[in-house]
């Protein structure tokens, strides 16, 4: 709860104080506020401090922050702080984009802590509507316009489907509260002609479709590559990391509420996961653009995370937390290097990395760590994340794990392209050298990924 309050009030303050000022003079304040929400929710989870007064303002049947919710809020706020710091802009007039990012994060906090479907719905919308605007924030670029319109149409469409599912669930269970929904499916209201199990199943399927749209899982992923490519880099990273993790947390909560009828439809989720993994990785192989490749990689990661939904273990949220940590940091790192490497000569293609190991070896090293972590090579956090995920999912969905292993093997093909261009491709020498800012931040993220990969138990003992 504390994260939500700090982020929201900081967003309002930044939005109004910075109306006619440069964005760069407020981005530090935004980073401080986001770090503060991250640290406060971490301390709150650990019991080091208590903000019970805030909790009492919001009814517990609407939003409830338990231990894992606080931890996810802490992770998301931390990732958002890194994104805002790494992609800060110097030429923007007005702080509207900073404000929108932080409002969007408020929606994410609502989505991870919801206890009532109204809050889930509001969370999805509060998360998405600022992103529609942010996707189009490069006003003169046709690609950005297209990304914005496409994201908006697909988002609104999936919201409609999600809401129809909600209505069916409401009809089937007679309640919108998670607790009530779980315990009294098909209860007293013996109305004539009310096909209750059908309503609940149809509702669950429609709600899942709505959420799968948000995480860009196949076959509802078709919007993702275009939107990721067209949006400004900062928005793309936000969509690829925070939206995805949040949607999976919310999805997991929804599914575990309906644990009893889990078996009837875990089959098709499994199939969707397989399609997503295979499609995302195979399509990633044939892409030429860096951002397009990363978009398909994020689709493939959504496929791996479908496994997480199927794990039967009750206390499984730490797997998602660790996977989200590894995946989000690696994504931010790779996107940041790609963002700074892009020149007018090589705006999108892999050629932007040519000769990176000569030009600035440390950046090349950070790029390798980020890419290997996304691919899941040992001694990087991505490996441990995949290891935990696959080994826990093995019991409930062995076939999906098999496909996941195959997909990870395929994915090395396109992740290797980054390394090939950074280390092996010869350059003629007349390349204009790109100045890299924030080398310290890149090294810090790379070090975090390596440390978390080498000693995951330290992080996990500390966090869970």
């Amino acid at each position, binding site marked *: 709860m504390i994260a939500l309050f700090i982020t929201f009030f900081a967003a309002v303050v930044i939005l109004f104080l910075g109306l006619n000022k440069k964005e760069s003079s407020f981005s530090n304040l935004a980073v401080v506020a986001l770090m503060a929400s991250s640290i406060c929710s971490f301390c709150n989870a650990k019991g080091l401090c208590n903000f019970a007064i805030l909790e009492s303002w919001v009814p517990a049947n609407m939003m409830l922050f338990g231990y894992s919710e606080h931890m996810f809020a802490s992770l998301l706020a931390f990732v958002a702080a890194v994104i805002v710091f790494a992609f800060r802009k110097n030429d923007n007039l007005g702080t509207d984009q900073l404000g929108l990012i932080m409002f969007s994060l408020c929606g994410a906090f609502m989505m991870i802590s919801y206890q009532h*479907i*109204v809050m889930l*719905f*509001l969370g999805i*919308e509060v998360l998405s*509507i600022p992103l*529609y*605007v942010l996707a*189009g924030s490069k*006003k*003169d670029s*046709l*690609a950005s*316009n*297209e*990304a*914005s*319109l*496409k994201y*908006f*149409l697909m988002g*609104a*469409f999936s*919201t*409609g*489907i999600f*809401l*129809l599912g*909600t*209505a*069916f669930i*409401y*009809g089937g269970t*007679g*309640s*919108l509260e998670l607790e009530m929904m779980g315990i009294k499916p098909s209860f007293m*209201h013996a*109305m*004539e*002609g*009310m*096909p209750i199990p059908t*309503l609940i199943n149809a509702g669950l399927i429609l709600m899942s479709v709505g959420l799968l749209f948000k995480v860009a899982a196949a076959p509802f992923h*078709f*919007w993702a*590559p*275009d939107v990721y*490519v*067209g949006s400004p880099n900062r928005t793309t990273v936000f969509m690829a990391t925070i939206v995805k993790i949040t949607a999976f947390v919310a999805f997991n909560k929804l599914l575990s509420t309906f644990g009893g009828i889990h078996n009837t439809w875990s089959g098709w989720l499994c199939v969707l996961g397989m399609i997503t993994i295979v499609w995302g990785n195979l399509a990633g192989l044939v892409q030429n653009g860096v951002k397009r490749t990363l978009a398909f990689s994020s689709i493939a990661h959504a496929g791996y995370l479908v496994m997480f939904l199927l794990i039967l273990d009750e206390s499984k949220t730490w797997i998602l937390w660790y996977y989200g940590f590894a995946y989000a940091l690696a994504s931010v790192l790779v996107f940041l290097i790609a963002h700074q490497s892009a020149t007018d000569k090589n705006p999108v293609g892999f050629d932007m990395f040519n000769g990176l190991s000569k030009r600035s070896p440390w950046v090349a090293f950070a790029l390798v760590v980020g890419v290997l972590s996304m691919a899941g090579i040992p001694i990087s956090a991505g490996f441990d994340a995949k290891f935990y995920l696959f080994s826990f999912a093995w019991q409930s969905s062995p076939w999906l794990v098999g496909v996941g292993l195959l997909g990870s093997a395929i994915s090395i093909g396109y992740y290797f392209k980054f390394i090939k261009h950074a280390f092996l491709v010869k350059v003629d020498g007349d390349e204009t050298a790109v100045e890299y800012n924030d080398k310290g931040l890149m090294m810090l993220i790379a070090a975090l990924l390596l440390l978390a990969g080498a000693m995951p138990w330290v992080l996990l003992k500390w966090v869970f």
Partner: protein
Amino acid sequence: MNLLSIFNQVEISHYIYLSTVLFSIGLFGVLFRRNAIILLMCIELMLNAVNLLFTAFSTYMGDADGQIFVFFIMVVAAAEAAVGLAILVLVYRNTRKTDVSFLDQLKG
């Protein structure tokens, strides 16, 4: 004859069918029309079909939650329409058309 009994003469399943049909009209509109403004209208139709269903369930179950939800849906739909129209204006300024065939630029 009071109002509630009139409602109860219509079975709940009729409401389910009606809103599913309305929703499907909106859904197919989104899938097959090319004009972005008509797409927006179709999305509104989908949301309003859901509103109808929520009100019907709410009335039949004597539970106010569903009707409150309808207010939230209406508010969010208004916000979404505002953002959507703003995006459309942005697109129109750059391309001089409101056709979604423009969406092929990034070769989806």
